Structures are given as structure tokens and as C-alpha cells.
């Protein structure tokens, strides 16, 4: 009779976990390094910072984000132009982004860009797109695009950037929607 080796459940579990870790390491997106985003009901309402999928950035500081929104910085690293696209004023994600990042009102934000164009520091203001679908299509198709959209709108083809190391849903996330 063949001698039966008794293998404990624990030993099988250890081998299974090792296999999972190994395979997770080799199946991360090549050359990206950004962790996948999991959108839960808690983070679906938060405003995500989205960029074109070819953008190599994973994380952006609030200071740099403000500079980009205010037009003080106009290029990503690698000299790709920042193509800023926003929903129109009055839409929740637009208003929250301007208030939280630039720390101004919508009218002051418009005035800031009018002044920038008047000084010759920019040829035009941010592109304003009046529907979520068109906005996400623009970001998906445009290298250098940067925009802001609720977490529930996220889909493949977009890159979600962390802000100061935090993602939508995290405690302390800059563009968090707090329940009233």
C-alpha cells in the first residue's frame, strides 16, 4: 500500500498565499507602478483627479495641483502640455475642486484666467465641457489631459491620481464629499 503523506491544511494555505503573492507581483501593470483603484460606495461621491492613461504620474501634491489649475504650471514632466478640462461652474465637482484646490470662488477663478490670458501667460482658459461622458472621452483621448470627476464615473482608459498620497474614499482626501 502506498504510503499516504498527510499534508496539513495550513501547509496548503501557505503555499497558496505564496503563489498569490508571486503572481500579483508579476501581473502589476508594466512600467506604471500605480496601485489599482477600488471604488466603493463611500468613495463614489468623492471627486477623483483623472488624467490620460499615458500619464506616468501616480501621485500629485495639492500644491502642484493648485499651480496647474491656476495656470502657473502648464506642462507635465516630459514637457507634455497640461490640457485642463472642467465641467461648467455650478456642477458639484467643478465647484468643489475650485474651492478646495484653488481656494477661490468660481467668479474669482474665471477672473484669474481672464487676467492670465490678458497678460499673455495663456492663450485661453481651461476647456469647459458640459457633460460627464464628453469630459471623460476628452481625457481618454487627449495626451496631457487633466480633469476632475466623481468616483462613480470612473472607467477604464483613465488614470486616477492620488492627491498627497490619498485616493478617493481615504480619510483626509482633499476632494472628499462630506455628507451633510
Amino acid at each position, binding site marked *: 500500500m502506498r504510503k499516504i503523506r498527510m499534508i496539513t491544511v495550513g501547509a496548503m494555505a501557505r503555499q497558496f498565499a505564496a503563489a498569490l503573492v508571486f503572481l500579483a507581483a508579476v501581473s502589476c501593470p508594466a512600467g506604471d507602478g500605480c496601485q489599482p483603484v477600488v471604488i466603493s*460606495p463611500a468613495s463614489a461621491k468623492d471627486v477623483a483627479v483623472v488624467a490620460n492613461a499615458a500619464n506616468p504620474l501616480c501621485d500629485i501634491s495639492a500644491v502642484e495641483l493648485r499651480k496647474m489649475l491656476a495656470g502657473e504650471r502648464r506642462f507635465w514632466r516630459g514637457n507634455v502640455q497640461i490640457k485642463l478640462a472642467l465641467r461648467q461652474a455650478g456642477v458639484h465637482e467643478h465647484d468643489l475642486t475650485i474651492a478646495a484646490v484653488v481656494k477661490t470662488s468660481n467668479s474669482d477663478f474665471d477672473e484669474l484666467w481672464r487676467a492670465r490670458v490678458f497678460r499673455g501667460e495663456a492663450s485661453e482658459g481651461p476647456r*469647459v465641457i458640459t457633460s460627464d461622458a464628453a469630459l471623460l472621452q476628452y481625457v481618454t483621448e487627449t495626451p496631457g489631459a487633466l480633469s476632475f470627476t466623481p468616483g462613480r464615473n470612473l472607467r477604464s482608459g483613465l488614470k486616477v491620481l492620488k492627491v498627497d498620497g490619498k485616493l478617493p474614499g481615504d480619510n483626509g482626501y482633499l476632494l472628499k464629499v462630506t455628507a451633510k
Partner: protein
Amino acid sequence: MAVYPYSSLEGPAFMYEALHTPTATRIAVFAVAIFLLLMSSPIAGAQQPSVTLDADTVKALLQRVQDLESQVKELKVQMQTLSAGQNAPAQLATAQSPAGQAVNAPDAALAQTSMPDHAGMEVNGPRLQIRGYGDASWHASSRSGATNTFSLGQLNLFMTSRISERMSFLAETVIEADTATNEFSIEPERLQVTYNAGDWLTLSVGRYHSQIGFYNTAYHHSALMQTTQARPFMFAFEDQGGILPIHSVGVSATGTLVNSIGLHYVAEIANGRTARKEVNPVQSTSDDNNGKSFNLGFFVRPSQVPGMQFGFSNYHDHVTPPAQSGVVENILAGHVVYQTPQFEFMNEAVLQRHTLDSNGSTTNIPGFYSQISRRFGSYRPYFRYEYVNVPARDPLFADIGLLHGPKAGLRYSLSEFAAFKVEVGRDMRRGVSGANLFGTQLSFAF
């Protein structure tokens, strides 16, 4: 010792034998792990969010359906409008916001391809945008001989156009009346093509505002865009008696040197200005001499204090007045400015030095202004004190003399594009008694 779940008495014999071979065990474990990973995580490419289907998610999906339906409706309306042959440029104008372009992605494509007034024009060509600025005022002075006057200010047609992804055009064409003759003239006060190589270099060629100090590049030919009725005297336009080379024709470069500390540079080379009184002081088509003016400066916008800027610049030129000794001109300018939508505190100082070629003697022209204002809703009270002192022996601007005094006023924003200002001031000059000033101004954009 734990008992394996399948014993020879309970489990299928083939599975039992397979699982109890060490190599086979490992293979089975890895196979299951591979299967689970393939089903649940992305191997490459973009991130995939996972959504749990609850009431909120269903609601969000319904909202997306509604957005898509409204987009389809808009497309149908636009198709109907196109087929009815309405004027596409009028649609484009009403769709634009003051700061940018309010378009749906499909709208942009439609607007660019349907412009009956520009039949045959390249559909992907430059898109010219024009905005107008103007002002009208009433002012009075207690100075002997002065009259109270209604005045038209500068009518500024401000034009911009994107030539390509990184190249743009800007022009300020100003129509204004001469204060002495009331005759109108038209002049391109700014006319420049700008190339954005990156944050490190923005290159402009043409006629531009010299980057001397802060005010001259922050404010241009629009009373609406500045707090006060008029510019500080030190930064007055050449044709309004100003002593600085406000406009230059040449090449201007600026960019970010160190992003982390907000350090920027300025480097300019231009024709410089003419000292001949009978012609336009801005040399737009020919230079009096072979020498060029140079301007080099640095300024810092610290990231930790949004709205703060301080900097320094040095402008150098050689001016050759007719039948006089040439003059080497150096203009040293420094500024410390804190400016937010709610509050501004601007301080600039300039030292203009004129050195005669003939004997090397130098005259110094100091000047400064300090301006503070704060916004309270639609109201913005302000105060400014300014000072310029031109020595009597200065070879270029001796007629200016000493000019200084305070101005205080109130700006009321009628809307985003119109403002009404009331201002009082005291004008003090060397050799004449001071005069009280009073003025009102309506400034607007259109």
C-alpha cells in the same frame, strides 16, 4: 497532527492520490492561484475599478444614462440647426465662457466644420477671439487753469488666437484721442507671437510690455483689469508722459528656473527707445542706433504663499538724442507684491540712472509706489502713494521734475465686466502749488 480532509475512506481515490503527491500538490495550488488572479485583477494597462451594486451605484448608473440621453438630444438639435442653415459663428460666440470655451466635444467638432462666413477656411486653423475694453471718465482738478472734463479712455481691441498647440498670437490694438489735440489715433500697443517650449521657456517676439518691475506686465491697456483709475505715474505710458520704456519691440523670454521655490527668470533684447520728441518713442520699425536694450530679471513666487511675488530686474540701453551726447540708461527695479482676489499690497521701487557719454556724469531718478486695497463684496476701497523725482539736469526727462502724492478711491464692481470708480487725490509737484484731484470712471469689457 491535522487530518487531511479527504481520507482514503471519504474522497475520490484519484484526487486523493494526486493531491498527496508533493509536486502535484504544488502544481494544483499554483493553478488555483493563477485562475483566481486572472479572474480578479488587471494584468496590464489601465486600472479597473470594482463596483458593488447597491442603491447608490444603481442611481449613479441611471444618472449616466440620463447624461448620455441629454447629449444625444443636444446632438439632434445641432443637426437640425445645421440643416436649417443657421449662423454657426453666432452659436460659437454664445457657447464661450469668459475664461475659456464652453463646448461639448461633439460641439467643438461641429463648430469648427460649419462656418458659412469662412467658406474654404482651414477647419483646423487659428481661432481668433476678440474682447474689447474701454472706459469713460469725468475728472476735475483744483489746479489753476484746469477744467473739469469728460474723457474717453482707451478703446482696446484685445485679440488672441491659437496658431498651433504651442504657439499663440496676442494683440492689443488701441484707439485713443490725443489729450492736446483731441485727434484719434490707432496703435498696436502689443503685437506678439508666443511660443511655449515648456515651463522653462516662453518666448515672445514682437511688441510687448517690458518686464520692468511688476505693474507693467500685470496690467496693460484696460482700466477694468486694474484696481485704480490710472496707472502709477512711474508706469505711465510713454505717450502719457511716462519715463520708463513701457513698450519694447524685440524678443522676450521668461520661464521657471526652479519649480520647488518658484524661481523665474526674465531675459529680453529689444530696439530700445528713441529720445527724439517728435516721433513715437516706441521704435516699432527702425532703431535709431545699432545698440540694443537688454533686460534681465528674476522673480520668485513661493508655493507656500500663493499670491506672493518678489523680484528684481535690470534694464540697460544706450539712447542717442539728436545733437546731444548719448546716454547710457540703466533701470533697476524691485518689487514685493502680495495679491489675492480679496486683498492686494503692491510695492515697487525703481532707480533710473542716466550716464552721459560725454563726461560720464550720472543722474539718478528714484521712484516708487505703494498700493493697498481690500475687497468687501462688490466694493474695493484702495489707497496709493506714489513718488517720482527727476533732477533738473537729467538729459532726457528734466521737464517732469518732482511728482508725488496720495490717491484714495472706491471701486464698485457692477458686474464681472464693468466697474465704477470714484477717486480723490493730491498732486504735488516741485515749484508749483499742490492740487486736489477728483475723478469718476466707468470701465468695462465687451
